[in-house]
């Protein structure tokens, strides 16, 4: 590999309190990327203030500052950069925060496989180097209210997917004033609604009659990549949350019960995001999912896709 100009190489920041991890990562990636390292959250933020990075990879458990906090700062300082969490252990709160606050691209567990990590980093760099329009790149929290309201007025349809009739009614009442809301009790019903209406946001319950929603969502995104998914659950689970990040790139994971203002705000943000994604389809790369690694899940995913296609073509 000919590395003529180091400046032109994508710049990656690794954050970990264990220097040996940083050494190992540097050895793997220095040939392809401009690798910078930080051994603490504070050092990482300093680096983020000094330079722009395409990808930030952080450990979660660190003294002083957690990885989520580092990634949240990175999102604010450099919205264009992609964020990856690389951690040895994750509790539920960490994974939920990784989705909602860090908006991470991937959640990678230690010990990692070099090849997989290379692939992940490659796709992150690819997404990061895509041109980003300023309004989409800006952290959504920073968007002015007027813009949000404009977004909400675009009347993006919302699909509520929940087996519980009471919850469906409650969500419809909460969201129905500002936008069309379609309710479905099962995935099949929901797919039918998706085919016949313009729907940009899905508000779905994680436990949908025993079906694995993360697979279904991944499959739906393969079909329509600009769909924005909000998952509601009363039975949060770290492993499922990681799957939702890596294979579904869900926008938010909310734990029931959800307060009405939070839900409305989140759906507004999601609508805004759908509008942006619809305008700039190339941005979808930033939310590209990884294909399920296990053959069985892959088969299931493909089966689900087939089913979706069949429903849509009907």
């Amino acid at each position: 590999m000919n590395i003529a100009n180091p400046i032109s190489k994508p710049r990656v920041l690794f954050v970990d309190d264990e220097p040996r991890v940083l050494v190992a990562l540097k050895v793997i990636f220095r040939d392809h990327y401009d690798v910078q390292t930080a051994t603490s959250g504070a050092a990482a933020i300093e680096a983020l203030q000094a330079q722009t990075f395409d990808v930030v990879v952080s450990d979660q458990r660190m003294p002083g500052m957690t990885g989520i906090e580092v990634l949240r700062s990175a999102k604010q300082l450099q919205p264009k950069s992609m964020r990856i969490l690389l951690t040895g252990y994750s509790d539920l709160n960490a994974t939920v925060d990784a989705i909602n606050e860090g908006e991470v691209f991937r959640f990678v567990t230690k010990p990692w496989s070099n090849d997989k990590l290379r692939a992940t980093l490659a796709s992150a760099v690819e997404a990061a180097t895509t041109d980003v329009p300023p309004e989409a790149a800006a952290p959504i929290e920073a968007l002015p209210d007027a813009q949000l309201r404009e977004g909400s007025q675009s009347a993006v349809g919302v699909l509520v997917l929940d087996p519980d009739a009471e919850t469906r009614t409650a969500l419809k009442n909460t969201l129905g004033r500002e936008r069309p809301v379609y309710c479905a009790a099962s995935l099949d019903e929901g797919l039918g609604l998706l085919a016949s209406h313009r729907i940009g946001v899905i508000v779905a319950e994680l436990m949908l009659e025993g079906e694995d929603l993360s697979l279904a969502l991944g499959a739906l995104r393969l079909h329509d990549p600009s769909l924005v998914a909000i998952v509601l659950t009363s039975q949060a689970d770290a492993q499922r949350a990681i799957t939702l990040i890596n294979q579904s790139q869900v926008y938010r994971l909310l734990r029931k019960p959800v307060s009405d203002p939070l839900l409305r705000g989140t759906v507004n943000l999601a609508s805004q995001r759908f509008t942006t994604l619809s305008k700039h389809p190339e941005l979808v790369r930033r939310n590209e999912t990884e294909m399920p690694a296990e053959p069985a899940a892959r088969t299931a995913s493909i089966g689900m896709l087939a089913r979706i296609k069949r429903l849509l073509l009907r």
Partner: protein
Amino acid sequence: MALSRMASGGYSPEPLFRLPQLSLRNLALLVAATLAIGLLASLLRMSWGHAIDPTQQLRGLEQLATAARLDAALDQSFESARLALDAEPAELPDLVQRIDATRQGLQDSFTRSGVDASVSVPLRNYINAARDKTAATTELKRSLGTFVTAFKAMQQQGDSTLAALQSADDAPLRRPVMALVSAATSYGIQSVPGNGADIDQLLATIDAASSRDHAVLSKLTAAVRTMRSAKDSLQRQLAAFRAMPTASSLQQLRNASLDYSRNEELRRERGRTMLGVYTAALFVAFGALALWLRKSFSDLDRANANLQQANEGLEQGIAERTRDLSEALDNLRMQQAQLIQSEKMASLGQMVAGVAHEINTPLGYAQSNVQTVREVLSGMEEPDAGKRESLDEAGMLLADAEHGMERISELVLTLKDFSRVDRSRTEPFNVNEALESALKICNNQLKGRIDVERDYAELPQVPCAPSELNQVFLNLMTNAAQAIEGPGLLKISTCAVDNRVEVRIRDNGCGMDPDVQAHIFEPFFTTKPIGQGTGLGLSIVFRIIENHQGQIKVQSTPGEGTEFLISLPAVPKRAASPAGSTMEQAGS
């Protein structure tokens, strides 16, 4: 048993009778009772004691009549004797004797019948009078004798005078003498002579006619005068005799006696009436007492019944309370067991979290570095033969290192899977995987000693809390391993029956007798020595299976082994089947 003992020994029976305490009230009651009995006795004595014998009374009256008769006869005897010109009444001694006898008899009979002063005074009066009267008879007898002598002398003188006056010249004298004699005779005979004046006139006539001294005549007049004075004296004595108060005192005595007996009768009559009234009063009192007693007994009965009822209620209450308490105790024990269980799982989860992070971080860079080094080695230029061999060797060693690290990584994953601290409470779960995971965890209890025979069937997923189900399998496997001494066999089989999943875990260990089998699912029951077992393992297993709407059964023969059979409901087919069929279609 404890209950009945408590119920029977709960109270000691009250003594049925108790000595009355000498309170003021009781004392008053006692005095009243004594008075009542005393009054009754006196009334009885008044009406029945002291009775007057009617025959006695009759005899007394007869005696009184006899005495009266005798008294009259005594009077009469002197009158008759005077008329008969007897010097002495012939029956007098007999009469006197009889009067004395009667008097004595009266005294005896009245004294014997015990009379009071109203009778005894007249009696004494009569006795004195009778005694005086009999004493007076002697004087009267003498007077009578004098009169009879004088009368006879006068008649004799008259006869002799008349004989003397046979002469003519005495003829005028004859008639007055005869008249005188006749008058004197009638004077002597009549009980109340009224011719005393005639006699005085005749005497004066005779005295005048015999101016001369006539001896015969003077003799006659003297005799007449003597007879007259004797007669007057007798008459006086007789009158005095008759006037003696025997008859009146007898009458008095009779009246007194009759009065006495009448009074006595009246008194007794009154006594009887009073007794009757008193008896009636007593009857009323007894009736009232009986009523009061009856009422107090019925009150007592009612109180007793109430007490018994209350007692029964109390017993029932105690029984209920005991049942509630033992239920509460069971619940408490169960909760304690569950608390211990969840604490155990929580601390295991925390430990696993810490260990996983601590292991994964060095494992991460170690594994990565090994991979990197292998890549570097494989990317090296073609070396010479000597180096080639050592490079191959290094590659092999690195592959081994990688293998070892994969094992470590796998173990950490298994630990994480097992503790499931980062997993939701309930999710569809493959029981076969859970069994494998549990076998991996208790591997070093089985390794080299116990063969494991697996017979897994295709299973539907089971909705469960995976960490709890893992705990169940681990507990059963650990128990099986402990039941086997030396080499043995652990047989684990699964099958799907009617939308349920059945798991059999069988060992060929020491087994249990039925007595132990009956208790193994109770909390804190253990056959292990104190300090080596909490006795919670199987109770936790039981509770977890129950929470999953499952069933657990045990079958054991001492010396042959134990089999646990767990049956769990699978995920309902309705939701699972369409996806499955689609998958098949897609796959083919």
